[in-house]
């Protein structure tokens, strides 16, 4: 496979302007003759579909939800970055670009990141115009707050519900286009395959989740905006339905999958309560500003935290990192918590948690100050655990919540399949090995509102499109194959539920491919995952019918794909003999336990190419070069 990133030449701040001028345009009167399929209607998908509709294209939008407003983008809390410099604190496009490249541990493309920083200001303007109720100050101006990984206040927010408000903004723009008839929305449809005709993406095959019909839709281009794959770990902060089926099936049709091993872990989540646990809940990292993290000095100490005297507590972050203490970066805090629990010092019913104690802060500042700062979070914690964090320490544990890897795309956001584009978390493009806070919303909307509407036109204006309808043999073959897959899943009638397989996969992934990876654990995962895959196809039990709404059947297909993706993730992690951002190899760390990159050998995008189920995938490398931001050791000292 030949990977051409198509990064325009010239200075970084001119690349996008020059490129936009060079892109070919589709005549306004001709736009309605082109049909674009958009799969997924979260931030990236809804904003893209709405913008295509406004331009005059004929748009078909698909979601497995009943409504676009249910997409997981809605759960993002913190905010969205834009270098407006409203705070007059020295922010600029260049600074956001610099912070993002550095935060990504020098594994992102400079050209892409600069463009992201450039268009991000327009996103804020767009959302305000839509009626998104961003926080305001008393003069009526937009308010900002600061966020991790940056020394300026550039984060715009709408209480703790920024994702919700931005998604509802994009949803409203989409509603308008649906009303105007430019966009047709297909609810409760799950894309199961992308259809290629003469090597071009010309449509999709989707299952109608209400009646089980496999339906075919043809188009001139296909846009995937189907989110990330954190649920490969079973327990993550992702929504329950979030899955990788769309991107995985596209991978098997020839789209390269880039950097699957870049996964992000968040240190302050509410720990698992028991085996019944279905997902994890994230709490803002800001808690670490006032909370002290500790475990008992004695292994397996089952006393209540209040009963453990001060001298029998190990404030291990303060001990190991005297200068940064509890405010070490996300990845370090996460790994140390896991390490303490692995050594037997964990607390709570599952021993997979550490304490985050506000006792000292309450004594020092008073309860009212803590209440003002963190009241919402304390209430949420109380509701979930039935423990009052004003009286007893919180229990926290890290959890997976975002995946930086995804389908490989070029500067135009086109995958390695001509005519198939990938947006938002589903692609790999802008965050490198680690995403900074408040950047996910920014990237999803940048892709959808301000990048893809330009770049797709160039393809539609220049590519040749032989006449294709959903009656073409390629669609029929895809439908036959999927009917067969559904039948196969329904007929295995084994002994284990889909849920159990997913939990087992999650355990393999978390234990071996989680926060701290070694050659040994990764090799083990690569032995266990294929075994699980084999067992799945012999012993899974899917009940009910294929001709009505069957959540069990839906999940069976998704879990089958997760098992395969898990294997690729482990393989990528094994091959990357360095630590960078969200990928931590125990063998490669500095004396302080920081990620140690190997720029000489691994400064590239690893784009994997499918070669068949029983064959090793082919590794393609896209070299990364840094002309503006000089790679250095990320340091928090």
């Amino acid at each position, binding site marked *: 496979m030949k990977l051409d990133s198509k990064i325009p030449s010239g200075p970084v701040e001119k690349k996008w302007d020059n490129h936009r001028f060079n892109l070919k345009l589709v005549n306004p009167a001709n736009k309605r003759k082109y049909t674009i399929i958009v799969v997924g209607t979260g931030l990236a998908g809804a904003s893209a579909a709405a*913008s295509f509709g*406004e331009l005059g294209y004929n748009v078909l939008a698909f979601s497995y*939800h*009943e*409504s*676009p*407003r*249910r*997409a997981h983008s*809605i*759960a993002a809390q913190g905010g969205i970055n834009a270098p*407006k410099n409203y705070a007059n604190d020295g922010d600029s496009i260049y600074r956001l670009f610099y912070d993002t490249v550095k935060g990504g541990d020098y594994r992102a493309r400079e050209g892409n990141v600069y463009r992201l920083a450039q268009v991000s200001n*327009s996103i804020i*303007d*767009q*959302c*305000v*115009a*839509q*009626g998104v*109720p*961003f926080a*305001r100050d*008393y003069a*009526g101006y*937009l308010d900002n707050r600061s966020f991790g990984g940056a020394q300026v206040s550039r984060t*715009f927010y*709408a*209480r703790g*519900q920024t*994702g*919700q408000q931005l998604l509802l903004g994009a949803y*409203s*723009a989409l*509603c308008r286009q649906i*009303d105007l008839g430019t966009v047709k*929305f297909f*609810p409760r449809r799950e894309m199961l395959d992308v259809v290629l005709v003469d090597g071009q993406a010309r449509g999709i095959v989707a299952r109608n989740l209400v009646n089980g019909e496999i339906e075919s839709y043809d188009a001139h281009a296909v846009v995937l905006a189907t989110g990330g794959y954190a649920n490969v770990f079973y327990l993550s902060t992702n*929504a*329950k*339905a979030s899955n990788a089926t769309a991107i995985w099936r596209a991978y098997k049709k020839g789209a390269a999958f880039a950097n699957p091993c870049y996964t992000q872990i968040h240190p302050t989540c509410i720990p698992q309560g028991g085996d*019944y*646990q*279905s997902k994890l*809940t994230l709490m803002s990292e800001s808690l670490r500003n006032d909370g002290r993290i500790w475990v008992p000095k004695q292994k397996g100490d089952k006393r209540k935290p209040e009963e453990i005297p001060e001298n029998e507590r190990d404030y291990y972050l303060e001990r190991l990192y005297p200068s940064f203490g509890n405010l070490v970066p996300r990845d370090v805090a996460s790994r140390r918590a896991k390490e303490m629990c692995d050594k037997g010092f964990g607390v709570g019913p599952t021993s997979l948690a550490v304490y985050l104690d506000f006792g000292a802060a309450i004594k020092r500042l008073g309860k009212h100050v803590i209440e003002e700062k963190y009241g919402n979070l304390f209430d949420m914690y109380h*509701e979930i*655990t*039935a423990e009052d964090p004003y009286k007893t320490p919180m229990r926290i544990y890290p959890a997976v919540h975002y995946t930086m890897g995804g389908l490989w795309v070029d500067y135009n956001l086109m995958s390695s399949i001509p005519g198939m584009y990938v947006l938002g978390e589903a692609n790999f493009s802008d965050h490198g090995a680690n995403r900074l806070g408040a950047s996910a919303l920014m990237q999803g909307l940048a892709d959808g*509102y301000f990048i893809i*509407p330009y770049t797709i036109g160039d393809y539609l204006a220049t590519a040749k499109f032989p006449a294709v309808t959903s009656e073409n043999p390629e669609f029929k073959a895809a439908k036959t194959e999927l009917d067969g897959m559904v039948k196969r899943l329904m007929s295995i009638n084994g002994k284990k*539920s*889909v*849920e159990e397989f997913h939990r087992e996969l999650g355990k393999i992934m978390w234990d071996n491919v989680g926060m701290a990876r070694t050659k040994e654990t990764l090799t083990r995962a690569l032995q266990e995952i294929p075994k699980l895959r084999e067992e799945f196809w012999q012993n899974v*039990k899917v*009940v009910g019918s294929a001709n*009505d*709404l*069957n*959540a*069990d059947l839906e999940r069976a297909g998704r879990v089958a794909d997760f098992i395969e993706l898990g294997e690729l993730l482990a393989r990528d992690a094994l091959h990357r003999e360095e630590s960078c951002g969200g990928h931590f190899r125990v063998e490669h760390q500095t004396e302080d336990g920081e990620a140690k990159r190997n720029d000489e050998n691994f400064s590239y995008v690893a784009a994997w190419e499918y070669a068949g189920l029983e064959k090793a995938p082919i590794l393609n490398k896209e070299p990364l070069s840094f002309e503006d931001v000089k790679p250095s050791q990320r340091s928090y000292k």
Partner: protein
Amino acid sequence: MNVTLKVWRQKSKNEPGRFVSYAVRNVSPDASFLEMLDVLNVELVKKGEEPIAFDHDCREGICGSCGIVIDGRAHGPGRGAATCELRMRSFREGDTIVAEPWRAAPFPVIKDLIVDRTAMDRIMYAGGYVSAKTGGVPDGNAILIPKPVADEAMDAASCIGCGACVAACPNSSAMLFVGAKVSQLALLPQGKVEAKRRVERMVDQMDKEGFGNCSNNYACEAECPKEISVTHIARLNMEFLKTTVA
């Protein structure tokens, strides 16, 4: 803890449904109500029975997917929380818990506890937006909005579109849902330009879908997981009235 779950089972829209009772054993009081359903569903699957179908996704009370009438109340006991935020410790040992889908004519049952809420989307298609196209908009700070106004708009905008207001209302009214959007956009300068057309079209669509009118029962506010105030229904009425006099 051990409870009995009496749950509505209905194969599809056109087939009659009925209550079926299940004994749920050894469920942790810390488990959520939906996790209790997960555990029961795995048992059902292993016995070769169809699991109970229910809508859910984020399980953090923000996506609006879940919605079950539990013991006669939309989203179950307690206030200000969606079904997914309900914990088993809200019930007592030995309780019989009754779980039903949203019951309202505009929300036909798809299966078991899942209903079709696309009627709410169609109301939004009719006008739940500011017609701002991508690009060509002024700088965010060019539109000044007093903080109290922005805050009140945010209160209204926090609606998660779950439909609990409709399920709780004896008249199956969607006026809290519609009022929340009309009010949000009527409060903001960006929304004022199209205020008249918006409220006319949204109310018209709401009527077409078969939702009832507000009868000042206020159960909607009581059951709303985001505790959205009925004041927004008052603003909806005011905005609607303005279209008839201006």
